[in-house]
């Protein structure tokens, strides 16, 4: 069943239709929140909050845009709110960045190349963490979620030109950060 059908059923009073939408998008939204917030608990909270807010607004949702871009917009804004509210907690408790890498299922042909890939991923993760929110969100939506420039523009409510410019700068910053991190090691 497609998203529009689920939404129509939900509007008729079938709450379980919303459960189907949660099941369909929970992994993608959770992944987005993990890369935006780094901390596992914060990501879980933000992802849950995203769906709760979507539930509250779904009756008024009109399919002028796709459901998933609407949902992503809620997720991005929720993550940004979480970052601002709970940055104090992340100062006290260490982030579980190592968990990100340890859970990475290596498909490398040999232990040496697996180790090299793991090292590169650690550098990428660290470089991503240093990006500002503005650049991190476009890179995550484009590179990790595979969204087009137009979809990202719709999610962030900016022009396609702005998305192009931010992605270009984000890549340049990432590359610069990765070089610095590698030199420091």
């Amino acid at each position, binding site marked *: 069943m497609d998203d529009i059908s689920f939404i129509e059923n939900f509007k008729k009073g079938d709450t379980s239709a919303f459960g189907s939408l949660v099941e369909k998008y929970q992994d993608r939204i*959770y992944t987005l929140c993990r890369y935006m917030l780094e901390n596992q608990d914060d990501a879980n909270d933000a*992802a849950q909050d995203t769906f*709760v807010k979507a539930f509250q607004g779904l009756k008024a949702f009109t399919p002028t845009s796709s459901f998933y871009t609407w949902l992503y917009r809620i997720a991005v804004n929720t993550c940004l709110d979480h970052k601002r509210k709970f940055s104090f907690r992340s100062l006290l408790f260490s982030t579980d960045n190592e968990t990100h890498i340890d859970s990475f299922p290596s498909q490398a042909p040999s232990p040496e190349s697996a180790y090299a890939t793991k090292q590169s991923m650690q550098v990428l993760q660290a470089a991503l963490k240093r990006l500002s929110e503005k650049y991190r969100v476009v890179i995550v939506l484009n590179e990790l979620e595979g969204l087009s420039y137009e979809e990202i523009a719709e999610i962030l409510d900016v022009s396609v030109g702005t998305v*192009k410019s931010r*992605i270009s700068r984000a*890549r340049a910053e*990432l590359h610069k950060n990765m070089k610095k991190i590698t030199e420091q090691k």
Partner: protein
Amino acid sequence: MRCSRAVKYLSSYIDSELGAKEVALLESHLAQCDRCERELEQMRQLQGLFRQAPKFSAPPVFRAKVMERVNNQPARGFSLFPVFIRFAEAGVFVLAITAGIMSGGMLINAFAPHHKGDQVIASLSLETFDALPPDSLGRAYLAMTEVRR
């Protein structure tokens, strides 16, 4: 196409977001420019890393937790309370500023009444110091101020 323009197109190029005309121009430039070609290769490597980045699964009870939260929510009707709160916040802010200005004014009046002004002026007068030599600048200043009074 110059390098300064080509570099701006590289990001859109690897995302297949460039128009056909720009693609042709860029590829023509890349065929002759090692520097831009290296830049493109770096971007492709970065993209390759992202393709290997882990995708996460939501925790096993995620859906159940969300449904529990949405099913336990109170019914939301229209309420003016949030609007009222905003106006109340603004009102408190304006009152605080006004109180600050008024109390500041009262303090100034309490500690600097007008009849003390002459005492302040007198304390600053050069006459409180040792007598000035007749041909000094200070004596000339005193002479000028005496004439004005």
